[in-house]
């Protein structure tokens, strides 16, 4: 049992409110990623879970127990920091043992725990070195080793990969995922990197300005973003958000999008609840289309006819940029199918289209 409940938690520094009634609840073995840009309050929230920041309002419960007034050492947590925060004068072994020494664990048990953790992380040969003699990836492993030996109810990771170079970051990401699968411990992980969130999480909380925008499993966040902010933040290249007018056609919706120097484009067959259909018919909406939901039209009349402005081959596919509804739109197409300055007919996967209210920017279902 190691659940985490964050119940209407607030944090304020004087008049400045950095967290506004945040509520998140995850179960045993969940991997929660707090995702957001810097300054969104995600690290503050993590520090509050750890007990390194005070809680202004609300409650945090770990395994059902309220921890608001407990000091970090009594919360049964372990934390991995962005800078690793290894004790510079201690060897790797002493670093890993430090917490156990403080809790007066018998030397024999300490040795056993160090051995298990270092075998798991493949750092056994580094045990007698000082942190300054280790590479970034090795330091990262030691920091995780220090967390693992505590056998905590909750692991907290504060942007653990952002100090590593790109290649190592991908490797360590896999490593963390494997570790989670192996240990099954509940994890809270803070990052601003949406790919880390997508690949690691079982639950993602997208945050902005101290408010959780959406809390869901990663695929759901990607497919059905709660609002325009989430839609733009998750996914690379970002989801295209195009202004349009909605028309009701029977039980489905059609969006009408202005195209420069051409007749307006009509994308139909978008399913919507009758209630939403009635409310938004004839009004402005924002249409969210992922770059990969465009394709080159091969048969029949294309949904859209556009002029490609810039074409960027990335290897596995090609990104084609064009104007639609007065904004720049990116399509992810198979290689060699798009040519800059050429006209092209595109089809759109309407089942993947997401509509947003043009004023509140929240999703319309």
């Amino acid at each position, binding site marked *: 049992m190691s659940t985490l409940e964050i119940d209407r938690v607030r944090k304020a520094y004087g008049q400045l409110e950095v967290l506004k009634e945040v509520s998140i609840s995850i179960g045993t073995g969940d991997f929660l990623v707090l995702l957001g840009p810097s300054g969104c309050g995600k690290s503050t929230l993590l520090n509050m879970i*750890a007990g*390194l920041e005070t809680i202004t309002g609300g409650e945090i419960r770990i395994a059902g127990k309220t921890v608001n007034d407990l000091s970090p050492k009594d919360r049964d*947590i372990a934390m991995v920091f962005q800078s690793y*925060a*290894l*004790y510079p*004068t201690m060897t790797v072994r002493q670093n890993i043992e430090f917490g156990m020494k*403080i809790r007066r664990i018998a030397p024999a048990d300490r040795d056993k725990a160090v051995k298990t953790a270092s075998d798991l992380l493949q750092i056994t040969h580094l045990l007698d070195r000082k942190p300054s003699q280790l590479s970034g990836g090795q330091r990262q492993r030691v920091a995780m080793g220090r967390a693992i030996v*505590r056998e905590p109810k909750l692991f907290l990771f504060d942007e653990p990969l952002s100090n590593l170079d790109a290649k190592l970051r991908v490797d360590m990401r896999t490593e963390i995922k494997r570790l989670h699968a192996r240990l099954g411990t509940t994890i809270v992980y803070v990052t601003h990197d949406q790919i880390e969130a997508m690949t690691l999480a079982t639950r993602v909380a997208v945050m902005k300005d101290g408010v959780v925008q959406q809390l869901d499993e990663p695929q759901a966040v990607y497919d059905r973003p709660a609002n325009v902010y989430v839609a733009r933040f998750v996914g690379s290249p970002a989801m295209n958000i195009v202004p349009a007018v909605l028309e009701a056609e029977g039980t489905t919706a059609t969006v009408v999008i202005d195209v420069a120097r051409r007749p307006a484009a009509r994308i139909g067959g978008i399913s919507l609840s009758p209630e939403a259909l009635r409310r938004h018919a004839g009004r402005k909406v924002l249409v969210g289309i992922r770059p990969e939901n465009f394709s080159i039209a091969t048969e029949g009349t294309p949904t859209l006819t556009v002029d490609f402005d810039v074409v960027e081959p990335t290897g596995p596919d090609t990104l084609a940029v064009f104007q639609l509804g007065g904004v720049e739109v990116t399509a992810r197409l198979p290689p060699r199918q798009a040519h800059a300055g050429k006209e092209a007919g595109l089809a759109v996967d309407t089942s993947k289209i997401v509509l947003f209210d043009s004023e509140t920017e929240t999703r319309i279902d």
Partner: protein
Amino acid sequence: MTDVLSRSGKVRLGRLVVYGCLFVVALVYLMPLWVMVVTSLKPLDEIYGGSFIGLPKAITLDAWRAAWSEACIGTECTGLKPYFVNSLLMVIPAVALSTGIGAINGYILTKWKFPGANFVFGLLLFGCFLPYQAILIPMARTLGLLGLAGSIPGLVAVHASYGICFTTLFFRNYFVSLPDELTKAAMVDGAGFFRIFWSVILPTSIPIIVVSCIWQFTQIWNDFLFGVSFTSGSSSPITVALNNIVNVTTGRKQYNVDMAAAMIAAIPTLVVYIVAGRYFVRGLTAGAVKG
């Protein structure tokens, strides 16, 4: 080819000029020391015979012996020995106290910040600019009230409290460069205030501890004003005793004994610099480069 040669020739000439200048300056600075050393090794007659800079004809350690254990200070003819011991008894606890308190102050001011911490630090900084003379009378009154007037413990208290401003500044500036995450990690590991200080912070602070000790040792050992103001007679530190040897003489002025006494008084600070000097430079520049 010729180009490279002429350039390296120019470089060599430049070097020559630089080293030449350094050599001359070093000579000028070492001159007084040379005079002190040779004078202290000469018999008094030879000095009065007019040889001041030249090597002694016959080396004698009599002056050193006299300065150490025979010279008269006031009415007591004990040499510098007891006052040297006084200075040691004063400097060791005073350095330890001021460095220790400075370290804890710096630790609190950086890792356990409280509302108004910067203001407190500002006040402490202000203490660095207080001239010695300004605190003489209030300090004398305080020592009197504490019953420490005229004693070595009193002098220790004066030096320790006067030094805290400087040591706090040293440690605070050093600890500011240690990442806060280090303290946080130790807190999550279950360590408390003193455990973090002792096991995590202090072991990383050797360079700044050395800097603080050298600084404090030099200041306190060389101090004359506090020593002469707050002690008297047999509890005086060596600087005061040295002054008395040199200024209170009957008959011919014993230059050789004076020189030997001055050197005895200077030896401990020299030793500290030679032994720990490389840490001093390293500590002063620490934090500039991430290790």
